[in-house]
């Protein structure tokens, strides 16, 4: 058997890459992809632990996460399309009207 720690390490690396991507990248769609990466890293961790300890809770939870991620992407992409229509750009650095 592959030890659980390998899966958790992989999940961690994926999560970190996603986090950095959210913080560093300027393209809105890339940020969304990074968020997806973070969510899926968490999914991986859930499934690994579910298999390791024989509890179904982890796998059920993954369902929820996937659903929520999908809904969120739908809304988010709609927003991005709307922004692009007015601004012709999705560079988040240029969307700073709400500054104080």
């Amino acid at each position, binding site marked *: 058997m592959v030890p659980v720690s390998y899966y958790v390490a992989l999940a961690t690396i994926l999560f970190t890459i996603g*986090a950095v991507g*959210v*913080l*560093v990248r*300027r393209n809105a769609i890339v*940020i969304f992809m990074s968020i997806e990466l973070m969510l899926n890293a968490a999914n991986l961790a859930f499934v690994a632990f579910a298999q390791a300890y024989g509890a179904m809770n982890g796998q059920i939870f993954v369902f929820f996460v996937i659903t929520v991620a999908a809904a969120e992407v739908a809304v988010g992409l709609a927003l991005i399309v709307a922004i692009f229509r007015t601004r012709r750009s999705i560079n*988040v*650095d240029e*969307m*700073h*009207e*709400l*500054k*104080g």
Partner: protein
Amino acid sequence: MLLSEAATTGGLFNLVPLVVFFPVIGLLINIIFGDRMGEKAIGIVASIAAGLSFVVAVLLAIALIGNHEGAVVHLFDWIHIGDLYIPWSFQVDTLSVTMMLVVAGVGTLIHIYSIGYMHDDVRFQGHPDAYKRFFVYMNLFIAAMMVLVSADNYLMLFVGWEGVGLCSYLLIGFWFDKGENGTGNATAGKKAFVANRIGDFGFLIAAFVMFWAFGTFTFNEVFEQAPAVAEAMPTVIMAIAIFMLIGVTGKSSQIPLYVWLPDAMAGPTPVSALIHAATMVTAGVYLVARSAALYTLVPEAQNIVALVGGVTALFAATIAVAQFDIKKVLAYSTISQLGFMVAAVGMGAFTAGMFHLVTHAFFKALLFLSSGSIILGLEHSHHHLEHDGKLPKSEAALDPQDMRNMGGLRKRMKTTFWVYLIGALALAGIPPLAGFFSKDEILTEAKVLNPTVYILLVIAAFFTAFYMGRQIFMVFFGKPRTESAGHAEERPAIITVPLIILATLSVTGGLLSLPGLHTFSHWLEHTLEHVHVEAFNIQVAAISTGLALVAFTLAYLLYYRRYQQQQSMPPAKRPDDPLRPMLGPVFTMLENKYWVDEIYWALFVNPYVNISRFLADIIDWNFWHDWFHNKVLARPFRLFARWTAWEFDLKVIDGIANWLGNTTISMGGSLRRIQTGYVRNYALAVFVGVVAIVTFLLLR
């Protein structure tokens, strides 16, 4: 029938509040609806109100014939504080009903006369809208006088007393913008009020002493307790009597407070007739008659009252001899006749005094109203002549009341002449007119009760006849001395009919109390227990009638014969009165009324005015207002206010508020920098926060 039944059982007595209410309703109707009603309606409403009051008085008299004791009709509890209980009750007895009949009867006739008189007068004075005000005041007067005579206690009497004083003021100063310097009439009204007020002060002291001694104001209770109190504290009754006398001298214009009555002639003639001849001035006489039970206990006070009356009678009669204004002669005559009445009730001859009160009301009202008729006649003809351009220059400003401008009116104003003659003969006391019987009764009583006063009154009676004769001859006989008098015409029926009625009463009034029958005395006896009636004394009657005839003859010789002779002298040398060259400085003294007004002014009024001016201008204004208020109070306060506003409020309070605001702004400015608007900054903040929390949880 119902009336006689009610009369005997006394049910009619309960009508007495109506004598006050009818005039009150009349005046309310006139106040509220007067402007819309028109002159005739106003006059009719007022006259009907007075007339209904008279009808009620008649009914009360009928009831009294059946039931001599009378009754006290309680209306409501007026004052009830601890031991002080004063009801608003009406006393119906022969004395009060006599007064009610006189007031309402003569009052109604004068109201009717005024309908015609005021119609002319408001137009002569230029204030047509004053008509309504006049009748409102007249009805108010009747109401107040009725309260005075029907009261059952001294305090309610005082309410009426003050009320008539107020109406007198309002009516004397009725043409308040006319008179000398435009304020003469108002000043006369003020003088009347002030003189009356001084009298009222005396009345009030008497009332206070009475309450202190008796504990009550009600007539019946006071009179019951009087003998006991007189035994225990005789000076108290004396004090009450003397202080009440001060009130009487004010209201009934005796020495020393009579000075307001001649000035009161500034009011319209009906006012002079009603208030200053027939009714208000008799209130003092009524008061003394009502308080008979008190006065008879203090003979010294009675003597003083009688002397005051007697001296006033003579004093005023002498002044009347030298007056030229037709109304002033009648005013001094009134003071003199009131002196007769006060002397009578002072001596203890209460019925004689009341009898003279009644007859005097008739013929004095008659004389005043007739003089009004004459004045109107002159004013009218003056106006017509002016209108037609036939007025001589010397007559442009004609005083219609000056007898020197009259003459020969006998032919032009016949009715007025005859009624005036009747009034004058009645006043002089010529039998068989009313004045003879009443004056004779007073003289007969005086001869027995107080011979000094008898002498004073007899001499006064001589002068009375003389000045009335003088007046008759100056006004009605000889040739008219001015064009206005030459063209004067008789007044219409609304003026002459009341005069004729009053003349009839002046002729027949003697029947009230013929010697031997003494009907009136017996009538009053039911109320006043101390009725002293002397038998008819032929000697006294002969002396008084003889003196009156001598006086008339003297007046005829002077004012008919000699006056006519003097008219033919050139105007520069012609004396305005045949007596002037004969009496010289004495005449001037009489004409100037012994300079009493001037003496009062110098002794009392001027110092008082100076003191009050000093207090007002110097003490109150300069010291108190200017110095104290401005320097001591206002300046420090203003300095403090200025410091509080500019130094404290502006700098400190505003500083705090501004500092708060500025701090908030700068903090806001600093915190604003967190909101960059960049999504990645916010994401970084979230990330850092999560890391911090997880680290904290792991290392805990």
